[in-house]
């Protein structure tokens, strides 16, 4: 575990930088984390992050496919918003745990 400072708040994160407590998150923090990751956060980004947080709360495992079918953003759009590893990066910025595969 490590500690990070975002938007004047100290938060605990895992070795890979994922929040250990999703309740620590707010949009200001997300903006700072995004800048750190080289992403300028737009309203669309925030819409996706909020969707991910809502899904996380329901306890359902998130997959790129599921996000793509959510109506919030399609898969291609998700890749454009969070290039590289879209689900991993977006989960990190949404303050939720690293997406895991169950098999």
């Amino acid at each position, binding site marked *: 575990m490590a500690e990070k400072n975002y938007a004047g708040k100290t938060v605990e994160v895992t070795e890979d930088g994922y929040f250990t407590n999703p309740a620590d998150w707010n949009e200001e923090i997300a903006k700072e984390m995004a800048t750190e990751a080289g992403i300028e956060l737009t309203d669309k980004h925030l819409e996706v992050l909020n969707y991910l947080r809502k899904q996380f709360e329901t306890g359902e495992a998130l*997959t790129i*496919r599921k996000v793509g079918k959510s109506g919030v953003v399609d*898969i*291609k759009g*998700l890749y454009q918003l969070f290039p590289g590893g879209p689900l991993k990066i977006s989960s990190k910025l949404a303050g939720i745990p690293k997406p895991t595969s*169950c*098999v």
Partner: protein
Amino acid sequence: MIIVTRHFSARMLRGSIFASEIFIDILNPVTMKRILILGAGTAGTMMANKLRKSLDRDEWEITIVDKHRTHYYQPGFLFIPFGIYNKQDVIKPKADFIPPGVKVVFSEVDKVEAEENKVHLADGSVLLYDYLIIATGTETRPDETPGLTDKLWRKEIFDFYTVEGAVELQKFFKQWEGGKLVLAITELPYKCPVAPIEFVCLADAYFTEKGIRDKVDITFVTPLAGAFTKPIATKMLSELLAEKNIKVVPDFYIEKVDNEKKAIVSYDEQEIPFDVLTIVPMNMGNSVIERSGLGDDMNYVPTDKHTLRSEKYENIFVLGDAANLPTSKAGSVAHFAADILFENLMSAIEGRPLMAKFDGHANCYIETGFGKGALIDFNYDTEPLPGTFPLPGIGPFGLLKNTKINHYGKVMFRWMYWHILLRGKELPIDPLMTMAGKKMIK
């Protein structure tokens, strides 16, 4: 549940109003309780065998429904492209494995009407049940990926998850002189998570033995961050693939296949060209689940991961790949889960709480070529760990180690599958995972 009420009223009728022998005879067939199993694959067949042995034939009618008459030994498909097995090595009639006293119906299922405890068959007939066991499995859906089933399908693009695909690939490999072989995984979850790794390892061995390995470039493409899902196994398997000069391309999420360029294209517009593509197509649950409104967005049935009961209906249980359990879709999982489901079904029948808890136990042999194999053993909470796996009389097998004995474990398994596993007999492996022999590493 509705059915309990019905039995109660049937008994009341018998006892109070219609006390004559004639009525008892008529009512008896009605009071026979019914278990209906959908799917006579690995999971359904095992369950039919277990249940028939334990339930009184005068009280319980067991029916199993499947649209196909042939049982496939699916773990054997992997060996067909390399000529190790042929089609006849992996097929037997389904009916051979259903015990006497179980009614077999070969028919397509139209839909399940869960609120009414009814199953509608394609020919319009209706089957009633007191308890339903859904074992309809998962199927490959190459049609879900644009371009996959176009002009290169089964000519230069193959799957090995169907016997047809595996047989076609065997023919192709026999005459192939080399080039770029790409194995690509479309989407998670897919059946038997280690099979694609085994495929590239066996390809390495096959082309080495053929004397053209230097002309074959093998690439393993996955949407995962590494060769496997969990860190310790990924490390072991990545090293193994590197040793065999098999390239791994992680984080590649296929959008489509470009038939003109002969390349797979990802959502972020990267391309990987191929001369021959072996694809692990998208997997989805059976369409009957969708038609019945019983599934999630991939047609898997939401199932309590510990009790194996449907999250929505108290008299529906789900076994094997059809469930949305967060564990591997594999025969070993269905086998371990069958013991737990059996216990819980008995509890449900007797009106007791469901006490048996499935832990997601999976046990997978990984064939790595040249007469060797590796073994992984894990569950919901414990990732595959190194160490040894105890098996009375035969083992121990090395966990996450590439050894000859593990290969023999895999070879032996086909015999065990047909003779022990499908017939619902006991294997000397506990359904719940054991930590015995496993090494904890940080």
